[in-house]
């Protein structure tokens, strides 16, 4: 899949850098 296609698919979701940071911290804290 091209990056253009991936970005198009990902554009269906609205998120933020803060949400990404929180999700990563949650995952790494759980490990």
């Amino acid at each position: 899949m091209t990056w253009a296609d991936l970005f198009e698919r990902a554009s269906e979701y609205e998120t933020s850098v803060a949400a990404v940071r929180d999700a990563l911290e949650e995952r790494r804290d759980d490990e």
Partner: protein
Amino acid sequence: MTSEPTRIVADADVLAADLLVGESARAALDHVRRHDWLTLVASEPLLDDAEAVIAMLADDDLATVWRDRIEDDCEIVSHPAEDHPGLASAYRGEAVHLLTYDESLRSARTGLSIQPHADLSIRPPDAFARLFDPEALYEATHDGVYPGPDRDPRA
């Protein structure tokens, strides 16, 4: 260990933000996607983290197809499971650049299970996107004049 200025690690937050948010993460990684002579380095644990974040914030199918693609675009290195995936990928992958949104990683070089090597530049993606100079780096690491971008970053 010799680090290479053409080798770059993006921590899992930057990889996931590249896909899901865009903005500075995508601008930073577009530098890598545009240039065949730059190498994105990652470990399986680092990609596992990013894939999990994408699955949490989007869906499992998108996370899977992203993983398939990023593995084609990365050089995979291994490191002990207890090491920080971003720092360890940079250390083991002999990278000079580590892109992360984690301010604690950028400011606190103590208390980490693995110490960044002295040459490692730990930056947020907006700083990397703004300051990265492909022409200067190409001419410092190759013979000849910078030919310009040699890949489509959306291919």
